[in-house]
């Protein structure tokens, strides 16, 4: 398929259709409203369903209801909206329903700003809503990867019967890049939704299904949560994605960075290489499960003197990086958290001064 020039938000919308998701519910919020605008226009062409909910709270439950029927369904939002959806995310995780949530992050806390941010790392990877659960979180570095991750998200949500999140930022949502929609990423629904409230007639069943997250019996709740835990352990074995950059050298320092920020870091690494300083990078593509072993192994390399987590937040992923490095090398943080994206020269300066 030929490449087309598309804005990230619109490409995510098209990717959902290409992935076979024709059900979309959303509420407008900058900087992701173009997904809803695009799909409001596009979904009628493919007999799809779009509802603009009255709030992100309601949208979260529209997703829950639709997902509980075993249908492919997606919503997109940005940070404050994701906070409002986090209640539903907790219920959806507890009730074990597959659904795709896209967060095009903006600055926070509170209304924060509308410029790019990675300030929702904790919210996305550690829960966000109440209770014992995780989301499978993928973080694209650009429009093409946002498309691919969106397409992969639906079968992954079905495989694990749980919510999957695409964690982008305002830059990925707003910028235009050439993209293609790989046919081979379309996956037929797993059709393992014999648990769903699809109507007994449709299933040919004489037994009702109940989609719920209430388990008053402590043993049943414990069992449900241990089932979730087993899913997360399986994700750690099967779904970790990361990219290594310039790690076939005797690098003196290791950057860990994801999303938009990692692209700037790549340019900085190229610049430093020209100046004779080798720096490696691990770019997590999944934030949960996290590339624990990849980061540890890269940090363990003898030439590597220090590890630095570079993020558009005041230091969130750095806690996971520290955990993975297990004290074998010093771990530092650098970032911006107001909406500006550091220039490659700034990154190079920071890394060089760290190593001196």
């Amino acid at each position: 398929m030929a490449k087309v020039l598309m804005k990230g938000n619109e490409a995510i919308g098209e990717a959902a259709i290409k992935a076979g998701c024709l059900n979309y519910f959303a509420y407008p919020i900058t900087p992701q409203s173009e997904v809803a605008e695009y799909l409001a226009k596009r979904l009628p062409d493919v007999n799809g369903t779009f509802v603009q909910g009255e709030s992100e709270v309601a949208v979260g439950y529209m997703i829950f209801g639709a997902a509980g029927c075993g249908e492919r369904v997606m919503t997109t939002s940005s940070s404050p909206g994701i906070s409002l959806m986090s209640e539903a995310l907790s219920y959806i995780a507890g009730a074990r329903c597959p659904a795709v949530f896209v967060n095009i992050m903006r600055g926070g806390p509170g209304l924060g700003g509308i410029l790019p941010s990675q300030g929702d790392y904790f919210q996305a990877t550690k829960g966000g809503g109440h209770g014992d659960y995780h989301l499978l979180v993928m973080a694209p570095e650009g429009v093409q990867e946002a498309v691919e991750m969106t397409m992969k998200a639906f079968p992954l949500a079905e495989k694990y019967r749980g919510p999957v999140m695409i964690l982008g930022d305002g830059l990925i949502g707003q910028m235009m890049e050439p993209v293609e929609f790989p046919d081979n990423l379309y996956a037929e629904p797993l059709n393992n939704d014999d648990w769903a409230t699809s109507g007994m007639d449709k299933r040919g069943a004489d037994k009702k299904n109940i989609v719920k997250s209430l388990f008053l019996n402590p043993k049943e709740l414990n069992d449900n949560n241990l089932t979730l835990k087993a899913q997360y352990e399986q994700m750690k074995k099967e779904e970790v994605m990361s990219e290594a950059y310039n790690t076939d050298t005797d690098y003196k320092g290791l950057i860990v960075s994801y999303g938009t920020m990692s692209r700037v870091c790549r340019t900085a690494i190229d610049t430093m290489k020209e100046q004779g300083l080798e720096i490696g990078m691990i770019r997590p593509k999944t934030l949960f499960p996290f590339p624990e072993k990849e980061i540890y192994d890269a940090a363990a390399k003898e030439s590597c003197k220090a590890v630095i987590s570079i993020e558009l937040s005041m230091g969130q992923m750095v806690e996971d990086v520290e955990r993975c490095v297990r004290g074998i090398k010093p771990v530092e943080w650098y970032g911006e958290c107001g909406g500006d994206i550091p220039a490659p020269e700034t990154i190079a300066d920071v890394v060089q001064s760290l190593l001196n």
Partner: protein
Amino acid sequence: MGKTFSKPRALTDVPTHYCPGCTHGVAHRLVAETIDELGIRGKTVGIAPVGCAVLAYNYFDCDFQEAAHGRAPAMATGIKRVRPDLMVFTYQGDGDLASIGMGEIIHAANRGEKFTTIFINNAIYGMTGGQMAPTTMPGQRASTAPAGRDTGSTGMPVKMADLLSALMTPAYVTRQALLSPKHINRAKKAVKKAFEYQMNNTCFSFVELVSTCPTNWGMTPKDALKWAEDTLIPYYELGEFKTPEPEEEQ
């Protein structure tokens, strides 16, 4: 002598957790009879609220989802929009629907979502133990209004059927009661009509049922019925507030 009374097929054969004298059992039965009569058990999805009816899925024998507090109309929207062939109903109490879920019910009604809401109004929070609800009557005692509801600081009881019938979108909105056989017969007709409007893809349908909560009102079941008749019915007037066909309006 032949069998003259039996349990609807759409109800399971288990004891409920409802208190003696509670009208939830009657409301469940009316919905279940309707499901049986319309032959829709195999394509019905109910949505349980948070409140006394949270375990309704143990009593109804059809597919069910369990909502967060107040969010049942949003879930019903999600289900009905992606599976318009299903029959979807929410079953909600007054704390769930008229307090925390006020936004969801108004917007679902205003979008004209083609599902049915059964709204149990007993003027109090049941499950959490008798706290004041938006529907609690002036002066009525509740655990969070120990001196009786003070309308100066908490406002007047919310009349949901009246409120929803003010929306411009076509809908079926009715308020009935479960206080006597006469009431119950009328309520049954209303529930069935509500499901038929959904079945014909006509409009959103809303049945408010004035109910009792003897336990949290601190009354015997019999006194509760009398108190509801004397106190609730004059304020929560019964009747059809809105029908989708203007010429049929009462």
